């Protein structure tokens, strides 16, 4: 009996072992032969889900832009068709194989585009309120960006599927979380724009608006205003985009004019701007540095660096840290409360780096929606 049981046990144990070996062997063969196909399948599913989210987001942004044009802008006719044309509107960047004079060409193309958009939005609306027009421009810009993101992701998704390209699909799959995050930030921005609320990026204009309050302002460049004030015996040329419209202005052109046309010989140029924080950094943290603190396509930065280098003026930067979401949505308390501290830092920089009788340019950089002067 005991011999029979032992024999049975051996047989059962062997069978289990064989089954295990067969199972793992099969798994190994499947993984070896179809591993990439399986991964591609998972990637396709995940990208497809993300793509659906992007489609919903771009449709929502488009609808919000149309609703704003109709309800607030009092568009004379149904703007749907015109908005759809805007979404596919392209700006062709100049050729860069001969980089000489490239910045001027980019500036020209971008300015032409901005002028065209503004005039067409103005014509679409049945009113001339500059705040409404600027908000409409920004809403259309958000809808265009989301439309573009959706199109590009869809392109690579379909291309990856069509060519069965594992690497195209996996790269896209890995990028999807960041793409969705950026798209979500853009969509959230529409709420702040519609309400005309200052955004996180407007911290520079907020600080500078306090220096301009009660002073005479003049238009120094397109959508950009300047005022002259004094601080402890120094003459300050303070500039920002013209608020409360959703403008970023042309601070580069403005600084070139102050130094060139007005003949001002500044001892320092201080720029206050929002800066993207790294993960782990606190919102509203203030950083100091040197250099032109300005984002964008690079035209303004180039103009400011050119102007400063020509007359050998040091460029000082005061930055307020925030995430991309915080920069383009309604200003958070932590950022707003940094304005006072930035003012103190600005005063210290002016006192430390210049002396009485000096002239200083102070520029508040960023979207000035909801921030007048």
């Amino acid at each position, binding site marked *: 009996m005991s011999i029979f049981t032992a024999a049975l046990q051996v047989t059962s144990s062997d069978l289990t072992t064989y089954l295990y070996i067969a199972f793992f062997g099969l798994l190994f063969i499947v993984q070896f032969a179809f591993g990439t196909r399986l991964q591609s399948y998972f990637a396709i599913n*995940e990208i497809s889900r993300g793509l659906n989210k992007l489609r919903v987001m771009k449709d929502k942004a488009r609808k919000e832009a149309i609703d704003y044009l109709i309800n607030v802008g009092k568009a004379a006719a149904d703007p749907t068709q015109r908005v759809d044309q805007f979404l596919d509107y392209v700006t062709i960047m100049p050729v860069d194989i001969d980089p000489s004079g490239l910045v001027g060409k980019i500036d020209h193309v971008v300015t032409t585009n901005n002028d065209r958009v503004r005039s067409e939005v103005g014509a679409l609306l049945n009113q001339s309120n500059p705040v409404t027009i600027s908000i409409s421009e920004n809403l259309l810009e958000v809808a265009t960006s989301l439309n573009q993101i959706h199109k590009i992701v869809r392109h690579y998704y379909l291309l990856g599927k069509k060519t069965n390209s594992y690497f195209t699909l996996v790269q896209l799959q890995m990028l999807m979380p960041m793409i969705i995050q950026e798209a979500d930030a853009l969509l959230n921005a529409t709420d702040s724009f519609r309400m005309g*609320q200052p955004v996180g990026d407007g911290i520079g204009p907020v600080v500078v608006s306090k220096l301009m309050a009660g002073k005479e302002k003049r238009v120094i460049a397109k959508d950009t205003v300047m005022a002259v004030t004094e601080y402890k015996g120094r003459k300050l040329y303070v500039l920002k985009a013209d608020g409360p419209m959703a403008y970023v202005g042309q601070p580069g052109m403005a600084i070139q004019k102050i130094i060139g046309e007005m003949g001002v010989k500044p001892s320092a140029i201080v720029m206050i701007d929002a800066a993207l924080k790294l993960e782990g950094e606190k919102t509203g943290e203030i950083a100091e540095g040197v250099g032109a603190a300005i984002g964008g396509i690079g035209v303004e930065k180039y103009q400011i660096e050119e102007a400063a280098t020509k007359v050998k003026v040091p460029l000082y930067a005061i930055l307020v840290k925030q995430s991309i979401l915080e920069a383009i949505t*309604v*200003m958070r308390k932590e950022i707003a409360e940094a304005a006072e501290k930035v003012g103190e830092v600005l005063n210290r920089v002016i006192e430390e780096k210049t002396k009485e009788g000096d002239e200083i340019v102070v520029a508040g950089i960023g979207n000035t929606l909801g921030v007048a002067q």
Partner: protein
Amino acid sequence: MMSSVPGADKKSKLLVYTIEECPVCGQKTKRAFSVGDYVTKESSKCPKCSNSTRVSLVYAESTKQSG
């Protein structure tokens, strides 16, 4: 290789406030934002000295935070 597409961030509700500041006595008052408010806009009378106040800040606070 596996990653996940995040849903839209779970949004904590943001309440937007307007801060009015009296340029004479420095008194600050906080009220809910209303459309048309912007920084430097002349606003209501100061509850302390009856001078016109100006909007000094507009910001959002998360409902999760106290105050």
